[in-house]
């Protein structure tokens, strides 16, 4: 592997600041800020996960076991808000921060100081939001969608709205930074259609963020003015309409779903070629499929609202538009499988999680197709079938991709190899228990169990008990992940090589492991052979 020509051996001529405060609070370095995002996401993942454990403990048996219904509603609301805005999104931003400059040969993000601000807004936003749990009126309890009039009854609405505004500002700044970096900071020779798919997926995701976060800000501001300033946007008594909120929210909410899955597509498109030792099948098709999915995400929002009484024409339009998303998604799944076909495959932990992603995300996709059917959705709407569907997409989809990416790039970050044995233990425990946790919820939903309830009919008892056992063990499995991370970052004796994985291609593998504090201060000389997609235009 001759890659010396692409690496400037003198990159690390000045290291990280020595003082803890200078390094982590004042950092403008994309790697340090990426690390901050990832650590923040991990902390939020365990906080949101502890809420999930409480939810599953309450649902272990019929009847009220541990808490009052209002607190249960707070837990479901907070679990979603923390996991979506605190864990999944910051984890992807952290991965983007770490890897995008390395992948395109840039010395840092285009706007390093704004990068620092984008991150440091988040801990304040989440402290504000989580603090409501300790207040007299309790936290938000109207669901993460914050539908009026239910959400307007909460005393903590103003706190949550302010926290959402802060998260939105952070996301918009992060998105602007990523677009500016990708469009302007690429090394010479890194043409757009030679960029790694992960970089493409983030470029498209960043445009989605810019388009929809202001819409969310507008929607929650209207909630605030309805509650405190005498407006009646969503109050029928004053001439308003609560369905208007649902339209505005889901115009944000559906692209938001893709904001949480498109970077995952990019990650899987990096990992599978590495461990199949083949270039990705259909690179351009993969890029255009991501762009198509992003476009379609703007014209399907009302499939979340089939049950509110939309005109028939609208329901049919949104049904077909939703089903259309299966086409580019199918292209991606086909291409991942085709990349593996005939490849010289090995099954290290990142690859195991990637394969699990392809299979289990597809299950989530299929249940999504079922939900897209208007007549069927009338039965499935607001049942556990929906809960099962979006957890297959977000846990075995987005979260598994984040875990796969962590194992894939951790040796590059820390310079040490993690324990493959314990990582595989983490994988097999996760993949078994996550299915025990969520698969029975399909049956519960089809049998009619509504979501967001602390108590239920005894007819649903068995599947709920199985689901809760799966939940506890899936939660416990993540402690193995934590152990593997701590060992892999600080204690592992096995040093990582620069390229780490035999089949890995791309600029990020041409720098030493661990990646020096400063990289590519002189733009690298790019050989097409070094790039995973260097010969795409040949």
């Amino acid at each position: 592997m001759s890659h010396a020509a692409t690496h400037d051996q003198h990159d690390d001529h000045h290291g990280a600041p020595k003082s803890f405060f200078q390094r982590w609070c004042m950092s403008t370095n994309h790697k340090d800020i990426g690390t901050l995002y990832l650590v923040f996401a991990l902390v939020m993942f365990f906080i949101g996960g502890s809420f999930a454990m409480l939810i599953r403990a309450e649902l272990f048996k019929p009847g009220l076991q541990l808490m009052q219904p209002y607190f249960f509603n707070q837990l479901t609301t907070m679990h979603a808000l923390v996991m979506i805005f605190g864990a999944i999104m910051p984890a992807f931003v952290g991965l983007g921060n770490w890897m995008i400059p390395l992948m395109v040969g840039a010395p840092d993000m285009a706007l390093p100081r704004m990068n620092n601000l984008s991150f440091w807004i988040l801990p304040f936003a989440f402290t504000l939001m989580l603090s409501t749990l300790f207040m007299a009126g309790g936290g938000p309890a109207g669901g993460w969608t914050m539908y009026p009039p239910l959400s307007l009854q909460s005393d903590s609405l103003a706190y949550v709205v302010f926290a959402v505004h802060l998260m939105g500002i952070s996301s918009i700044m992060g998105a602007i930074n990523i677009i500016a970096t990708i469009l302007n900071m690429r090394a010479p020779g890194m043409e757009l259609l030679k960029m790694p798919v992960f970089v493409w997926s983030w470029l498209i995701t960043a445009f989605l963020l810019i388009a929809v976060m202001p819409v969310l800000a507008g929607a929650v501001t209207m909630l605030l003015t309805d509650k405190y300033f005498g407006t009646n946007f969503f109050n029928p008594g004053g001439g308003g309409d609560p369905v208007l909120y649902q339209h505005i929210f889901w115009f944000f909410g559906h692209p938001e779903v893709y904001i949480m899955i498109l970077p995952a597509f990019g990650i899987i498109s990096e990992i599978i070629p590495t461990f199949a030792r083949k270039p990705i099948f259909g690179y351009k098709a993969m890029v255009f499929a991501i762009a198509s999915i992003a476009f379609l995400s703007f014209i399907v929002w009302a499939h979340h609202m089939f049950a509110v009484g939309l005109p028939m024409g609208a329901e049919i339009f949104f049904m077909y538009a939703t089903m259309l998303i299966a086409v580019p998604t199918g292209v991606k799944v086909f291409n991942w499988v085709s990349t593996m076909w005939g490849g010289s495959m090995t099954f290290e932990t990142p690859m195991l999680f990637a394969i699990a992603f392809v299979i289990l995300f597809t299950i989530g996709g299929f249940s999504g197709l079922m939900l897209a059917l208007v007549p069927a959705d009338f039965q499935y709407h607001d049942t556990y079938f929906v809960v099962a569907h979006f957890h297959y997409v977000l846990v075995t989809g987005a979260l598994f991709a984040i875990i796969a990416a962590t194992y894939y790039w951790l040796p590059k970050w820390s310079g040490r190899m993690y324990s493959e044995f314990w990582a595989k233990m983490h994988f097999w425990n996760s993949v078994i228990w996550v299915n025990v946790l969520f698969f029975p919820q399909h049956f519960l939903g089809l049998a009619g169990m509504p979501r967001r309830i602390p108590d239920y009919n005894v007819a649903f008892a068995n599947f709920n008990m199985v689901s809760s056992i799966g939940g506890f063990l899936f939660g416990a499995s993540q402690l193995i992940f934590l152990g593997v991370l701590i060992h892999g970052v600080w204690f592992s004796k096995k040093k990582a090589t620069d390229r780490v994985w035999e089949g890995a291609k791309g600029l990020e593998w041409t720098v030493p492991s661990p990646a020096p504090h400063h990289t590519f201060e002189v733009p690298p000389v790019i050989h097409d052979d070094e790039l995973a997609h260097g010969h795409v235009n040949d």
Partner: protein
Amino acid sequence: MSETAGCLEKPIHMTQPKMQQPAIDQPDADRRKGVRRTVTILVAIVAAFFLVSFVQIVLMK
């Protein structure tokens, strides 16, 4: 003056081996200009979205 300098220094791309890209073909100033232009456009888009939301709130009230 500039002609003399041009004779003494070959353009960067002529000194590179055939299969390599020139090490620096976009000066820092161009990059900074590009970043500024990108950020201006994106901020304008975000501001427009916020403004539309605000106008919507005011008009509907």
